[in-house]
C-alpha cells in the first residue's frame, strides 16, 4: 500500500486543489511500480493552510474555461478536447514545486522496494503520443521477467521488447489494417483513436539502450529493430551499479532520432520508476500475515 501526506503553508484556492493534485500525481506517484499490485488502500492527501501567506495574498488558483475539467477522463466523445485552464505565474511555479516534490517522494518508495537491489528509471520516447510511451513504460515496469533479469544483472533486452509488444492498447501496422477498421475494429479500442495514431509502435523502428548512472556513454542494445553487438563486459559494468536507466525510443518516421542541435526529436516522453525482483521479495511476501 502506498500512503502519502503532503502539507504546505501556501494559500491555495480550495476548488483548484483537486485539479492540481490530479495533474501532479500522474507523473509522480502514478508513475512508480514495485510489484505491479495496486493496493486497496492507496491514498495521497494534500493540505494547504495558507499560514505563511501574507494577509492580503490571493490564493493560488486556476481559471477553468471548461466547466468540468475532469470530464475528459470520463468522456467517450472523441471530439472533446481538454481545454487547459489559465494559471498565474505563481500557480505555475507552485505546480512545478509540487510536481518535483511528489516525484522525489515517490522515488523514495521505489528505493525501498521489498528485496530490491536496483533503482530503475524507464524512459520511453514516442513519436506518436505520451499515452503510447506510458503504456510501454508501464508494461516494462510490470514485467516479472524484466525485473528478474535486472536482479540477475542480465542485459536481457529481449524481455523489454516483449513487454512492450504485449502492452495493453499497443498496436502496430502489422496488427490492424484499414480494411479491418471498416469492419468496426476501432470499437475495440473503446476510445476512437484517429487512424494515424493506431499504429503506435513499429517493431522495426524500436530502439533500446541502457544509460549508465555514472553519466558514461549510452549502451545501445537494439537500434531500429536491429540487435547490436553488445559489449557484454560493458553491460555487466553498467548492471553492477544500483541505478540504471532503460531508454526506449518508439519511432514512426525515418528521421534522425537526435536533431542537429543535439536534442531528441521525439517530444512525447513517459518516465516510470521501478526496481528489480529478488529472492528476498518472495521471502518477505510468502510470509506476510504473521
Amino acid at each position, binding site marked *: 500500500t502506498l500512503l502519502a501526506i503532503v502539507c504546505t503553508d501556501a494559500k491555495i484556492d480550495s476548488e483548484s486543489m483537486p485539479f492540481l493534485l490530479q495533474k501532479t500525481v500522474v507523473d509522480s506517484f502514478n508513475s512508480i511500480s514495485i510489484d505491479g499490485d495496486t493496493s486497496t488502500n492507496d491514498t495521497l492527501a*494534500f493540505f494547504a493552510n495558507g499560514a505563511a501567506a501574507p494577509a492580503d495574498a490571493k490564493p493560488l488558483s486556476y481559471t477553468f474555461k471548461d466547466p468540468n475539467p475532469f470530464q475528459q477522463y470520463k468522456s467517450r466523445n472523441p471530439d472533446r478536447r481538454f481545454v487547459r485552464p489559465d494559471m498565474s505565474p505563481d500557480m505555475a511555479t507552485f505546480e512545478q514545486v509540487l510536481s518535483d516534490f511528489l516525484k522525489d517522494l515517490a522515488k523514495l518508495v521505489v528505493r525501498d522496494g521489498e528485496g530490491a537491489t536496483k533503482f530503475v528509471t524507464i524512459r520511453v520516447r514516442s513519436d506518436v503520443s505520451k499515452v503510447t510511451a506510458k503504456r510501454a513504460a508501464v508494461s516494462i515496469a510490470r514485467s516479472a521477467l524484466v525485473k528478474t533479469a535486472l536482479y540477475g544483472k542480465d542485459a536481457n533486452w529481449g524481455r523489454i521488447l516483449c513487454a512492450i509488444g504485449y502492452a495493453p492498447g499497443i498496436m502496430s501496422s502489422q496488427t490492424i489494417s484499414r480494411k479491418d477498421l471498416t469492419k468496426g475494429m476501432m470499437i475495440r479500442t473503446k476510445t476512437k483513436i484517429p487512424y494515424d495514431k493506431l499504429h503506435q509502435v513499429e517493431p522495426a523502428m524500436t530502439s533500446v539502450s541502457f544509460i549508465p548512472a555514472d553519466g558514461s556513454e549510452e549502451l545501445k542494445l537494439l537500434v531500429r529493430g536491429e540487435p547490436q553487438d553488445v559489449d557484454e563486459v560493458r553491460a555487466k559494468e553498467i548492471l553492477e551499479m544500483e541505478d540504471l536507466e532503460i531508454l526506449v525510443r518508439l519511432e514512426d518516421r525515418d528521421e534522425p532520432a537526435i536533431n542537429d542541435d543535439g536534442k531528441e526529436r521525439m517530444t512525447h516522453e513517459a518516465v516510470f520508476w521501478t526496481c528489480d525482483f529478488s529472492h528476498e521479495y518472495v521471502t518477505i511476501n510468502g510470509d506476510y500475515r504473521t
Partner: protein
Amino acid sequence: ADRTIPAAKQKYVPTSGTYPKGFLAGSAFAGVKASNTKYDDLALVVSEEPCPATAVFTQNIFKAAPVQVSQQLLRKSPSQGFRGVVVNSGCANAVTGVEGREHAEIMARTTDGAFNNGENQESPSTLVMSTGVIGQKLPIEKITSAIPKLKSNIGNTHEHWLNAANAICTTDTFPKLISRQFTLPSSPGTTYSIAGMTKGAGMIHPNMA
C-alpha cells in the same frame, strides 16, 4: 521485527527539516498488530486551523474502509474545513464489511473529538488512512484508546514529523520524509514550506484518482 535502518538507506533519512507553519505531526503506540509491542503505529498530521484539503485514491474496486470514508468526507465538504489525517499501520481495514466502515468513521470522529473538546461535528474533519494486512478487522478499542496519547505527542519539530513518518511504515526499511522551502514570483520575500511523508515497499503500483 528489528527496525534498524540499513546502512545503505541512512542517506535517505533527513536529519533536519523545515516544516510548514501551522501543521503539527506526531505518533503514538496502539498495538494494532499483535506482534508489534514497541513501535508507534498511529500517526497524526493536523493543521492548527481548519484548511482546504484534497486527496486521490486507489482505483482498485475493492476500496478499503478508510478510503471509502475519506472519499465520502471530501464529497460532503469539498475541499474546505479539514483538520488533518489520522493513520494506523498494522491493519489495512480493507474488505472488512460494514463494521470496517464504522471503525474508520470512529477513528475520524474520535480524532475530531480530541481536537474539538469532545464536541461532535456534523461531519468529521479528519481523513483516515490505514495500511497492513487486508481482510482483518481493526482493534478499534486499542486505536481509540491511543488517540488521546497521540494528541499529546504532536508538535512541529523534525523529530515529531519523523516519528509520524516512522509510525505509518509497514515493511519499509526507512521512514520517507522530505521538506523544502520555496518562493513565488509575486512575493520573493515570502518563504513557503512544503513537507510530506510517504510509505510503501510492497503492493505498490498506484493508479490514484
